[in-house]
């Protein structure tokens, strides 16, 4: 088995996949805690559908680097969704459901009307479940992923304390002079970037899993924001790494393998949490 692994690791595209996979897993887990706690997880879900629609448009327009189209569209939608979520008059969840299902439908429609290849359902499947796209990244895409993920990690570390304050108690933060709205906006933009990144790894339907599972697992085990954040980052990286390796060795689709590993990890953490709780 290790021989086989060593053989595969000689291929640059496998190494790229590992590097990019680990980085994406790392940054998608960082904001997971915030997302879950702020009840923002539905925004993540909605955005991933928007990103799917954007990807369909990019494919039809034959944009050379589709990230440059998907990223701005997703960021703008993130900002819009955040606005409607805060507006008491329009029901936040309804608006998100509308946008996300609408984007999904239009994306599929566009892909069918202007097929880019003969195998439409195959293309759709690829964008939804990621299939092998992580293994087919070009060097430019790898660099873009690396730069964006490093940027996300740096911003997260620099604004860690502010993100905590705004996540824990937005009213208090705002009342004592922290610009909560600006930071909410920042969080939304980062979420959008993460979703576009993660789409390469697991496809748009499975992104929420990548963002939320490590956070939920870590929350079973730890009691402080810092330890939960660190634990979920570590968990996420381990799961992504083992998921990619398993998928290479067993020939399974990358995205769903990673998410399956995440689910198993959550099960283990859940059990560990119960045992830990009993001991107390």
């Amino acid at each position, binding site marked *: 088995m290790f021989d086989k692994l060593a053989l595969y690791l000689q291929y640059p595209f496998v190494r790229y996949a590992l590097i990019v996979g680990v980085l994406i897993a790392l940054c998608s887990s960082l904001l997971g*805690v915030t997302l879950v*706690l*702020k*009840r923002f997880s539905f925004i993540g879900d909605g955005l991933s559908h928007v990103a799917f629609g954007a990807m369909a448009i990019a494919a039809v327009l034959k944009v050379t680097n589709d990230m440059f189209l998907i990223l701005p569209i997703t960021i703008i939608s993130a900002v819009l969704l955040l606005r409607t979520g805060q507006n008491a008059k329009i029901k936040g969840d309804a608006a998100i459901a509308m946008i996300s299902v609408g984007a999904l439908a239009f994306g599929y429609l566009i892909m069918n009307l202007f097929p880019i290849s003969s195998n439409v359902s195959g293309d759709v499947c690829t964008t939804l479940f990621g299939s092998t796209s992580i293994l087919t990244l070009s060097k430019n895409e790898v660099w873009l992923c690396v730069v964006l993920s490093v940027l996300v990690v740096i911003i997260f*570390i*620099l*604004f*860690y*304390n*502010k993100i*905590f*304050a705004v996540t*824990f*108690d937005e*009213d*208090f*933060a*705002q*009342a*004592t*002079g*922290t610009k909560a709205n600006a930071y909410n906006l920042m969080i939304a933009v980062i979420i959008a970037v993460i979703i576009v990144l993660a789409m390469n790894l697991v496809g748009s339907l499975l992104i929420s899993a990548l963002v939320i599972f490590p956070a939920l697992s870590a*929350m079973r085990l*730890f*009691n*402080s*924001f*810092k330890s*939960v954040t660190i634990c979920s980052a570590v968990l996420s990286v381990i799961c992504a790494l083992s998921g990619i390796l398993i998928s290479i060795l067993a020939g399974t689709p990358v995205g769903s393998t990673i998410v399956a590993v995440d689910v198993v990890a959550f099960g283990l953490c859940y059990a560990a949490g119960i045992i830990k709780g009993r001991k107390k």
Partner: protein
Amino acid sequence: MALLTVQDLSLGYDGHTIVEGLNFTVNAGDYLCIIGENGSGKTTLMKTLLGLKEAIKGQIEIGDGLKRNEIGYLPQQTIVQKDFPASVREIVLSGCQSRCGLRPFYSKEEKKLAEDNMKRMGIEALAKRCYRDLSGGQQQRVLLARALCATRKILLLDEPVSGLDPKVTAEMYSLIANLNKEGIAIIMISHDIAAAVRYASHILHIGTSVFYGTRDAYLESEVGMFFMKQQEGGEA
């Protein structure tokens, strides 16, 4: 000049007025209790004072060298906080956030301030515990310690004793009274008129009729006498 001067203030949501014609001032060292029935607009008033929502009409002036980021606030609790994985120290320290500006990390002095305020509230032993596992009384102390990190001058408390048992309530009141003696102005929302009358220097009663004045004036006023009598009747 007063810390806070409110002139002809009208409050409400979406243009719909709930309370109007509020006039009052808060000076350094004052202890103002805001009382009124459920839904009379007390929380709304506090949020407007804090700048969390716009007033419909009127002015709120901040003076006496008080800055926006020097106000401490103890909110009526929200649901999101209940299952939040955060240690007591992290939460208290987050009260220092307003001092940071754009600086990303807390300084030594701010960490020291957080420790001092935990001691002041008698929760230093809980520093590493998870907030969600604490009792209601302990949680209130944590949030009070956080509010103290944000201010040396004025504290706004929204029903700090709701859901606490009589013993812990009494402790909480005496903690707050001590803070007031140390020179911090207090604005507190309360349903407990007896305690309000006992501790406060000034009283603002909002409802169908608005009253603002010193504690003694309140006791002699019509609203005050009516409510005091009602509460005695309720307890008898």
